[in-house]
């Protein structure tokens, strides 16, 4: 008798016995409300084929990891997302983090910068430097990277609507350091599809935004070949309230939409696909997350090879950054967040991430203090050097439960792919609010589970401390920041060669109207200190703006 048949028989016996036993009064489901079997056995993996479903690390379909040596060859990059107040204040924080052992940079911009407004714009009032660093022009970028060798360290930038403009400023700043574009390593988020779905930081409508992305992919493949031209993101989709399967499915669907857009624009898939990267959430349900990461690699590899005909191994690799789940953190008893982040970080490492950001305990209240972000970084370093986990590759492979769950995640994602196709593809689904409704439904269900105490959140709806006072320091951005930034950008506009700026903006407008590569024109603008807002306004004149139909 096969092992799985024996196990099936034995499990049936055990289930009968268990029916008479006392079971806790709880719902045994994942954080995505998926029911979890009490026990997994070989019977749950009847069709399992090691070589087909897993293979070796660095070998198709890469379930066990994208590199053959994984963390023995190189640890994941410790990359804390960071930005606060003025570029000078943020530069100080970057030096602090590098000094404490972080190995990659990640820039968090303030809301005006994210939305394409200069610090002195009417709509920027009250928002400058509050949620991230204010960057208006090349001058700010120069200050931001003072004393940091961009030829030696990789930089990730979380920016979407105005991504090209910020990228132009980064390249121009590096040039001034003596670093050529072809030496630059890093990532630009620029994943506009998930903006319409979840993060909501767009400027232009979908079509011109997609065009800007294919221009960027083309530009990078020629001039900045070591740069990840996009970070296809699930993090924000999850933060907006989606389930793990939705995060997996919607993110990969977006990824495939970019692949199709690139191919349609006449680019060779094996030229741009190797520089597509991903960004996932690591939430609190430990095994669901690990299964999600492993399934993601397998799904991407299979589709890239079989559906899109990519021939290079590098095109089949799903490389990703992970951030631990902000939405899992609580404002109550904030020190508990250190523990939550630790488990989420461990799941990320067991899931084979290439890069990791760990949240600080105080981020439910404000931007992280030095003390809090140091603990967050130490969390990664303790996993790396003390836990033993990176010593062996994909240690959970072969676990009946983890392989069962990995398969389940893949099935769930494939179901969604069919549904999205049936509804006309990703852009149509965005238009019709399909993703947004799925996410809103999942968020509402999650809240209901908390309200009814079907789901316990420690410190929030159980294990409360009556009369709890906030005892940790909270970082406050000084009110002078806004005025400082306003003065700075106004001085930049006065001191630069405004004829050059006018000509550069004119060239940008023409390129946008036609089919010339927009990114190279944006770089020209950035080099002569054109501000982000000026570039955004120019492009708005050609591309228009976007307003969503809210779905709840």
């Amino acid at each position, binding site marked *: 008798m096969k092992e799985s048949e024996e196990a099936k028989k034995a499990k049936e016996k055990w289930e009968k016995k268990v029916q008479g036993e006392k079971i806790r009064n709880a719902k045994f489901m994942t954080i995505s409300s998926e029911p979890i079997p009490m026990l997994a056995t070989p019977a749950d993996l009847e069709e399992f084929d090691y070589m087909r479903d897993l293979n070796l690390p660095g070998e198709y379909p890469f379930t066990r990891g994208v590199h053959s040596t994984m963390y023995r060859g190189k640890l994941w990059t410790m990359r804390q997302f960071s930005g606060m107040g003025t570029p000078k204040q943020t530069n100080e924080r970057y030096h602090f983090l590098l000094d404490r052992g972080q190995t990659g940079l990640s820039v968090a911009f303030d809301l005006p910068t994210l939305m394409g407004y200069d610090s002195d714009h009417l709509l920027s009032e009250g928002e400058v430097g509050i949620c991230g660093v204010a960057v208006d022009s090349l001058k700010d970028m120069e200050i931001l990277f003072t004393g940091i060798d961009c030829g030696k360290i990789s930089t990730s930038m979380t920016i979407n609507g105005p991504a090209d403009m910020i990228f132009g400023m980064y390249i121009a700043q590096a040039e001034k350091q003596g670093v050529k574009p072809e030496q630059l390593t890093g990532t630009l988020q620029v994943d506009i599809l998930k903006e319409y779905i979840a993060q909501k930081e767009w400027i232009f409508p979908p079509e011109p935004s997609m065009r800007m992305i294919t221009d960027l992919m083309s530009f990078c493949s020629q001039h900045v070949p070591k740069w990840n031209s996009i970070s296809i993101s699930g993090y924000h989709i999850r933060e907006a309230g989606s389930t793990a399967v939705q995060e997996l499915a919607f993110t990969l669907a977006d990824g495939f939409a970019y692949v199709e857009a690139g191919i349609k624009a006449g680019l060779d898939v094996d030229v741009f696909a190797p520089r597509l990267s991903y960004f996932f959430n690591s939430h609190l349900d430990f095994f669901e997350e690990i299964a999600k990461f492993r399934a993601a690699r397998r799904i991407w590899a299979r589709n890239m090879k079989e559906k899109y005909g990519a021939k290079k191994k590098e095109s089949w690799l799903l490389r990703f950054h992970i951030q631990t789940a902000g939405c899992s953190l609580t404002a109550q008893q904030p020190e508990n967040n250190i523990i939550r982040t630790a488990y989420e970080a461990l799941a990320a490492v067991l899931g084979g991430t290439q890069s990791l950001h760990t949240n600080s305990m105080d981020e439910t209240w404000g931007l992280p203090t030095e003390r809090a972000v140091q603990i967050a970084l130490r969390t990664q370093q303790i996993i790396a050097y003390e836990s033993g986990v990176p010593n062996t590759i994909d240690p959970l492979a072969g676990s009946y439960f983890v392989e069962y769950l990995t398969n389940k995640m893949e099935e769930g994602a494939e179901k969604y792919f069919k549904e999205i196709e049936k509804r006309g593809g990703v852009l149509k689904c965005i238009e019709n609010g399909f993703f947004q409704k799925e996410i809103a439904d999942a968020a509402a269900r999650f809240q209901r589970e*908390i309200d009814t105490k079907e789901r316990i959140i420690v410190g929030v709806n159980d294990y409360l401390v009556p009369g709890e006072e906030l005892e940790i320091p909270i970082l406050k951005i000084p009110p002078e920041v806004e005025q400082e930034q306003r003065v700075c950008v106004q001085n930049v506009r006065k001191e630069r060669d405004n004829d050059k700026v006018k000509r550069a903006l004119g060239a940008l407008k023409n390129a946008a109207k036609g089919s010339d590569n927009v990114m190279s024109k944006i770089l020209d603008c950035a080099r002569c200190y054109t501000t982000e807002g000026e570039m955004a306004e120019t492009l708005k004149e050609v591309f228009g703006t976007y307003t969503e139909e809210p779905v709840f």
Partner: protein
Amino acid sequence: MEKKIRVVLSKVGLDGHDRGVKVIARAMRDAGFEVIYTGLRQTPEMVVEAAIQEDADAIGISSLAGAHMTIFPRVLKLLKEKSAEQILVFGGGIIPKDEEQSLYKQGVGKIFGPGTTTDETVTYLKQAISLKAKT
């Protein structure tokens, strides 16, 4: 038949994080309220205009990006200028306790912090609006 409670929910400022306001919108709709969700990136002027046009009983504002000490007072001021002070103002998000008290003093009805259940927001509105109707 009792008149349906009409509430305008809004995100004011540049922040686009709308998970919370949408969950509240749905819960209030499920509770039988007439919910008008304005969407993102509204100004105080736009919200007040919408509330007056929609004959709303209350305005609810989600504030997660720290601009609450500018936004709420401006909304209250506009309601006063337009003789629409009968419209109740409430909000939610990340607002420190000392600033919360200051907002109450200025006329905000209630601020709901993290950990609030959707039932609490519904119950509050029902009670506050029926109280206003009686006075």
